[in-house]
């Protein structure tokens, strides 16, 4: 198994994201001899440069990736560039299908061709779906039911499946890790959950109170590094042991909210969507729990991999 000590260069796809920036900084700090190359279609000028981190603004096209892999060689590839499904219109759907599915396939194909030693792909716990009959502690081999109710999550599920199928098919040639983290929150992360938690006067269901696992961005970045360093090929859920209910999380943050029954929320979401990008599937995630099992990951990186519990994570979000 390859470890970070044997690595000379790492490619980070989606390097402009909060988690990617944090991960790059931590790797650069701990392993100054590794050269990090970050690509992102967003503006990379504002990103903090370090001696061993280089950023490149690049449109995610087949040609660009082929050129990148031709010109540079990488020992590890971190695919953190999944396009968020925070918007649910048709245009963004086709964009997502293009990048999340076609893009991922192409990147994996190039990794194999260029003899990359390890690939880490960031999926999400959303793939399991938030359903009323979810067991608590969903293991990695549980069916991915997210797209049953919300077709808008189909690309997320399919991207996960492309990655996992590819992983098992090529396990003798390349180490691949697929991570399915719970909600990542932190001052640098601007996902739907962070926005929902911190925005005042958003409606919160009074007739349901699902449990949540929150991982702090810093803990998540450390998990990624540990995975690159010492975790073998496989699919791993990433979540802390502790949980918190939605209403407790809101109360803990001290952000005022509007309590409302879920059927009103569903109707309100249709209106809110006109002004604010609000994904349809999100309603279900604030209605039913989707608690994932972290025992597989613990076998490799130890029991205490999270420094912050959910309440501390929320405290840190409050400081933002």
């Amino acid at each position, binding site marked *: 198994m390859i470890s970070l000590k044997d690595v000379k260069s790492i490619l980070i796809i989606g390097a402009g994201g909060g988690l990617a920036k944090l991960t790059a900084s931590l790797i650069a700090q701990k392993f100054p001899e590794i050269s990090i190359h970050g690509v992102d279609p967003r503006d990379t000028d504002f990103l903090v440069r370090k001696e061993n981190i280089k950023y490149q603004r690049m449109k995610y096209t087949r040609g660009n990736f082929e050129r990148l892999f031709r010109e540079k060689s990488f020992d590890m590839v971190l695919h953190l560039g999944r396009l968020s499904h925070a918007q649910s219109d048709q245009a963004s759907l086709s964009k997502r299908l293009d990048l999340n599915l076609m893009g991922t396939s192409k990147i994996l194909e190039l990794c194999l061709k260029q003899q990359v030693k390890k690939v880490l792909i960031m999926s999400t716990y959303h793939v399991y779906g938030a359903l009323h009959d979810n067991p*608590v502690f969903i293991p990695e081999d549980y069916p991915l039911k997210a797209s049953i109710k919300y077709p808008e999550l189909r690309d997320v599920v399919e991207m996960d499946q492309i990655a996992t199928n590819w992983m098992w098919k090529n396990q003798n040639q390349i180490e691949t890790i697929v991570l399915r983290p719970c909600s990542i929150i932190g001052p640098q992360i601007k996902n739907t959950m962070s926005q929902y938690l911190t925005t005042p006067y958003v409606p919160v269901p009074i007739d*349901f109170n699902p*449990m949540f696992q929150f991982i702090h961005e810093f803990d998540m970045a450390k998990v990624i590094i540990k995975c690159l360093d010492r975790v073998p090929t496989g699919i791993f859920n990433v979540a802390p042991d502790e949980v918190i*209910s939605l209403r407790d999380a809101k109360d803990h943050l001290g952000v005022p909210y509007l309590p409302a029954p879920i059927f009103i929320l569903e109707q309100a979401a249709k209106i809110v969507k006109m002004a604010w990008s609000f994904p349809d599937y999100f309603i279900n995630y604030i209605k039913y729990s989707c608690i994932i099992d972290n025992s597989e990951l613990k076998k490799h990186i130890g029991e205490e991999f999270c420094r912050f519990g959910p309440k501390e994570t929320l405290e840190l979000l409050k400081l933002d």
Partner: protein
Amino acid sequence: MLDKLTGIFTLSESEKKKFKKIEEALLERYPVGEDPWGLNVNKARNSLKKIYPIYKHYFKVRVFGKENVQDRPYMVTSNHTGQIAIDGMLLSTAFVMDIFPPRILRPMVERFFTALPFIAPWAAEGGSVLGDRTNALNLLKKGQSVMVFPEGVKGIAKSTPDYYKMKPFTRGFYRMCAATKTEILPIAIVGAEEFFPYVYHPRIIQKALGLPALPLSLNYFPLPSPVDIHIGEPIKIPEGLDQDSPDKDIDEQVFKIEKVIKDLIDEGIKMRRPFFANQKGPKK
């Protein structure tokens, strides 16, 4: 009359003292906050404060066989009666209020139940969990006692002529016990059938409407039928049986448990208190 009515919802001084003692024991035993299934001891305590007077004064619950319960996890396995799961609520209350040390049982509920607004989160705060193998195994491994009604909805939704006749048990609960070597605590609840003494289930219409049950009853508010909970001796899992044992071997053990509970019911009927609507046993 009014005094009688308010008396149902209030506790006497001695009951209040007992409740306080139990509250302290509960807080010592369970961590403050929420567990991954949604149990919240503080909220459970508040619910119990409302349920206990009803348990004590409306349903006048008596518990027999307390000496059979030790301080260890069990698969608490009971007959299921009374059209709605009041029997589960009373059994949960009994294990907190009448058995020491108090413990919060984790009732396994039907899949449709977890989709019910207001009720599902309230029940989860009190300890209920979705009746799923993963949940049961995880809870048993964590040293919690799980409550199951292996008759399922068929057991609870019976028409009057079938009262106190048990439906066949499913095997799932036994496989979970075999996997974790958890002892089974057999329970018979007597008296809950008469919460709704005259009920008819039109099965054809119920199936056509896709409903889990369709009880046509003379009353839709539970009558104050006195309830007795009979706890049998724990049943160990025989050596050599595990969760992958053949159905034949599992069925043999499940039949034995059914028989134990049936016997407890028959004994319980002989001991029950008179009530005007009793379908079996003395009438007032």
